[in-house]
């Protein structure tokens, strides 16, 4: 059974929206970070779906790039979060507003 393209796009959009809402409204830095990962994977899903739809591998190549990038991002991002926690004894990002003033 072939799953129609628009179903997959709908799920990818849903995942992406969940990720966005997570980034915007969750307070825990780890959760926010995970939400970003969800957004990235939603995009990956869309790429793969289009790759399959068009019958070429361009989209899948992009997915590999994205995954590499995501791995690098996790490495840097987690390091930042740990460093923040060490300095401020919290992972609640509403408490972290050093950018102001």
């Amino acid at each position, binding site marked *: 059974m072939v799953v129609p393209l628009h179903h997959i796009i709908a799920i990818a959009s849903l995942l992406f929206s969940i990720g*966005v809402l997570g980034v915007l409204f969750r307070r825990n830095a780890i959760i*926010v970070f995970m939400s970003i990962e969800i957004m990235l994977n939603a995009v990956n899903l869309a790429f793969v779906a289009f790759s399959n739809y068009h019958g070429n591998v361009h989209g899948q190549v992009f997915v590999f790039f994205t995954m590499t990038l995501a791995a690098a991002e996790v490495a840097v991002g987690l390091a930042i979060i740990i460093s923040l926690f060490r300095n401020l004894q919290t992972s609640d990002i*509403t408490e972290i507003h050093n950018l102001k003033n």
Partner: protein
Amino acid sequence: MTAPIYLITLLPLIGFLINGLLGRFLTERQSGMVASGTVLGSFLISAQLTMGLMTRPGKNPHFVQTLFTWIEAGDLQIQAGYWFDALAAVMALVVTGVGLLIHIYSIGYMRGDPGVRRYFAFMNLFIFMMLNLVLADNLALLFLGWEGVGLCSYLLIGFWFQDESKARAGMKAFIVNRVGDAGFIIAMVLLYHQFGTLNIQQLANAAPFALAGRAFFTAVTLLLFLGATGKSAQIPLHIWLPDAMAGPTPVSALIHAATMVTAGVYLIARNSVLFTLAPATMNTIATIGILTAFLAASMAITQKDIKKVLAYSTISQLGYMFTAVGVGAFSAGIFHLMTHAFFKGLLFLGAGSVIHGLGGEQNIDNMGGLKKHMPSTHLTMLVGVLAITGVPGLSGFFSKDEILWGAFVRYEGFSWIWLVGVITAGMTAFYMFRLLFRTFYGQPRWSNQLHPHESPSVMTLPLILLAFLSILGGYVGVPEVLGGMNHFHHLLEPVVAISPWGLAGGHEASHFMELLAMFISTVAALGGIYYAYKVYILQPRMADELRDKLPGLYKLSFNKYYVDEFYGAAVVRPLVAFSQVLWTWFDDRVIDGLVNGSAALIGSGSRLIRQLQSGLIQHYAAFILGGVIVIMAIIYAS
């Protein structure tokens, strides 16, 4: 071989620079010597040039010298140049000659004043500017001198500027003069627009053939006359001159009697060709002149300040000069200008000597009986008073009668202008002898602590010289009816325009009428003298009785017809009130409101926008999202 003309003006300029820049290295005496010496040099050069002028052939002998191109902008080209003809010669000799005597006098009068070097610097600057005024060959350079003498007048009236009322008097003179100067500038612009030149000789040559109509010349000459009324203190701009007496007395003698205030008369005589083309203006000038002569004389009668009496007398005599040029008797006007410079300079210096001897007292109510304490001053002032009164044989007699005769010829008989002139002559005799009697005769009224003394010879010597000039100065212009040659008239004849009314020394009118007119004005003068003698010597209480009998007239005269009060109410106070509104409303509210308002707007706006910078990463992310949505929407919509 004659000296170059520019040396005449250069010397006082050098004196000004020496006294102005290096004054502190000079002793008081050296400063006075430098100032007097440069003016003496100017006088000698002027005399030498005048001699050269006499032997020069031609119908209108003159020397001319173009110095440099002063202003050059597009088509406008103004050369700085000097023009030395008979009129300029007379003026230059009067300015430097009387100026020299007053400079010498000042050495004695200003002794011990801490600002004496500044004083001599300004005096030399004044002589420089005045000579530029009389020697200029174009109206622009003349205007430079015109403004320059105004500046020096301002500086010297307010010489003792620590006294606020004196500083204010200087400002008043300057501001009132501005009104007239505006007319002068507009006239220059109109003339340049019409003729493309400001050179006085070129204007005089071109004017009779100009395409412009009579209205143009009437307008231009009225504007020039407006300038002259300001500088020469004619009604309605006469109010500054009495206040100008706040300056040192030699300044009053030089600037506000002998030279600067006569610049208006000179201006009209110099541009006589233009003025004769505008009969309406000429009539206006004659009318204003005679009214000024009469009203100023009536104000002089009740003044108590010795210098104020002389100031109103000066205004009155200037009125005579304007009457003269107004009726086309230009040479008579210049003649009176010259004799007036002698006797009024003398009178002011004599008054200065009295003030000096009494330790600064100026009120004639506190004088009297000074005759035996100050014999030289008394004798020379007596000569001056007799000269201004027009007693036959002295200079004022010849010049004043030539003016009255000019008015007689112009209006063909006993016109009201002639009549007012004669009445004014009687009033002049009265108030001048009142001054003399109140100062030198009768009982002493000064306080016992004062010990009046004669002034030093450095002051009395100029008085004596001026007294001789006041007696003899008239003999250069003895009218033909009295067996004279009227040299003065013939000297100036080629320079000034021949008035279209046929006044050429009175050839057309009968000699009998001329003698009759002369007789009547002499009787008026003698009557004035007798009346003053009666009121102030024979029956000393009569003056008070007269005042009590005519309180209205007395108050009107004593308060100078309330002209100052009128200007105060009509011009000064509305202006001050308007300025007040501009200050408290326009400046404080509107201008400051704009400045403070824009600052407040930016402040409150920033406070609002600053809320966006929360420092919370999620907010920023939301903004990014919002931006992306907007961009996508735009792309989708297109």
